[in-house]
């Protein structure tokens, strides 16, 4: 399988705190990889380094062969990033927001229009796209932002807590959209989440991270069997607690 993302011994140090310690994993084309871990485990720092927002202290991440350290602008052309609790410009109309964001990825007006049309279809906000984002509910904003993240058909979409704060129906809709895009369009996803149910439903492989260390990676079914666990939550508990004991 073609590798869209290769993370090689990525580390991040904030003053005296080692937030990420030599993390390595990869994601293939059309694959959904979930990074899971407790609060402060180093998920967001890892994602931010891959998204070129933070500079790695050591190691590197390669997106479609481009180094996040040395070619950050090339990497940004291949990815989109949906941060946790991300907002949108409240005074902007939904449609204008999509046009503005598409305009940051493309200069060709046809490509911009195509991306916006695609986003309109994905977010299903209909006429509400003509309203100011400030009037949207949290669920509507998240749908708009997800549509924004995938409208440009990135090689890798990085979604930090894609359904955080959403009700069951909205969360389900977003999960379905992610799965569909991976299966039908071959888009790759790197997802970070606390929600094990969501991870089991949506992802192909997972990586469990704790205290900056990537403790485990593998297909969900394989690791459940390995740890003789009924679900991912049990695996998570065993891996994280086991790591703390030793």
């Amino acid at each position, binding site marked *: 399988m073609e590798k869209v993302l290769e993370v090689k011994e990525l580390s991040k140090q904030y003053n005296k*705190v080692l937030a*990420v310690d030599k993390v390595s994993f990869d994601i293939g084309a059309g694959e959904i990889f979930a990074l899971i871990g407790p609060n402060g*485990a180093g998920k*967001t720092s890892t994602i931010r380094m891959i998204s070129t927002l*933070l500079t790695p202290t050591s190691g590197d991440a390669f997106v479609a062969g481009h180094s996040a350290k040395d070619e950050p*602008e090339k990497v940004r052309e291949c990815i989109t990033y949906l941060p946790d609790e991300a907002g949108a410009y409240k005074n902007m109309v939904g449609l204008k927001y999509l046009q*503005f*964001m598409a305009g940051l*990825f493309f200069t060709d007006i046809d490509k911009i229009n195509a991306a916006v049309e695609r986003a309109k279809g994905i977010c299903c906000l209909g006429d509400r796209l003509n309203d100011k984002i400030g009037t949207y509910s949290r669920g509507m904003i998240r749908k708009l932002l997800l549509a924004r993240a995938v409208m440009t058909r990135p090689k890798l979409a990085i979604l930090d807590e894609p359904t955080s704060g959403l009700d069951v129906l909205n969360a389900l809709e977003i999960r379905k959209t992610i799965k569909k895009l991976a299966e039908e369009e071959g888009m790759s996803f790197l997802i970070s989440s606390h929600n094990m149910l969501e991870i089991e439903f949506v992802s192909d492989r997972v990586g469990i991270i704790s205290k900056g260390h990537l403790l485990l990676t593998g297909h969900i079914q394989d690791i459940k069997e390995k740890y003789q666990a009924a679900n991912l939550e049990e695996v998570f508990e065993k891996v994280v607690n086991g790591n703390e004991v030793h």
Partner: protein
Amino acid sequence: MKFINLLKKELSELINVQMIASLVMIVAMFALIGSVASDAIDDIKESTKTAKINIIDRDETEFTDELISMLKDTKGVTLKEFNTEGDDYAELLKANKVDNLIILPEGFTETFESGKTPRLISITRMKSASTMSNVTSGNDSAIYMINDVIYDIITKNAGLTEEQVELMSSPVEVTENTVVDDKSAEIASGSIISKLSFQSSFLPIVIFMLIMMTTQSLMNAISSEKIDKTLETLLSAPISRGSIIGSKMLAATIIAIINAGVYMFAFSKFISTAADPDIVEKAVGTLSVDDALVKLGLNLSAADYVLIGLQLFFTIMICLSVSIILGALANDAKSAQNLLLPIMFLAMVPYFVSILMDINELPTVVKYVLYAIPFTHTFSAISNLSFGNMGLFFGGLIYQVIVFAVCMFFALRLFKSDKILTISLNLGQKSKFKKKKGQPEDE
């Protein structure tokens, strides 16, 4: 293309209904105040031409009759005589329904004839603390005229000729000259000062507004991206951080210039409607003030205006570079407001000092402290150029360029580093959770 897209977004964020409404309000407010002040000035001028004198003669002698008769004959004087008794002055004004009153007390003539200075009583009603509402020429004119009449009577009684009387009233004729460096002009220095201060009264306001608005616009543009959590999305898009910050700086500059232009227009309208042209023209000597300014080399040339523009440009650039740093430090709206205070302080100090005094005349330490504030050089630019202090002007300009280069270096370093996402000053509220230094909220 991508830069234009960013610039359009920044401008649409900054230009909103509130901003347009506030600008319209400012123009309307200045026009209204100007019109009201203009009416008040017209009233004062009218009252100066036609002095209304209200008088009570309690001496009732031939001398006071002659005095009153001479006042009545004076052109432009409307004189009313009253006979009300009593020493309650408020009651006297109320009873006669007037705002000013002169009383010639009993014994006025006797005192005068005994060669002593007679005393008269002047009563004026004060309606408010406002300057204009209390300007009334009635009593002042009356006292001036009474003095004049008594002076005439004394000189006539002394048997002096008209020429001698005139010589006594102004024994010396003064030809006033003002010198600036090696140039001189036949004009009173007061006239020049009036004209210069009148001309340059609104430029410091415009500079102050420019500093505040530029800083506030860019600080808000950056801090709101952090507060509304849109910055990470923007920074992860395929566009350079230089373009992001450049578009924000350009948009803030455009908005600041629009604001400054509107303020300048509104204020000049206010000046043109409210200011009395006679204020300047009154002091004109043998040379017109404008001609005198040219002769003294105090008029600003086109090149001077270019230099002022250049200094204004670097002032805005300093504000923008500092705003990037301050905007990055703010993590909520309150913090952003608090972080604006140091800039406001640094702009206000030289603003007031430059209006009230000559910075070069201040004690050395105070002078250098003021010159260390880069904005001081902008506020004193006109004065330096007018009076040929070119060393001070260019020294200030070079200092501003250096300050800008240093601030911009740190601002770009900050914006291009991880710190744009990790640093913050929590001035708005007490931190609920203590974080380890330099560590982001969520690892």
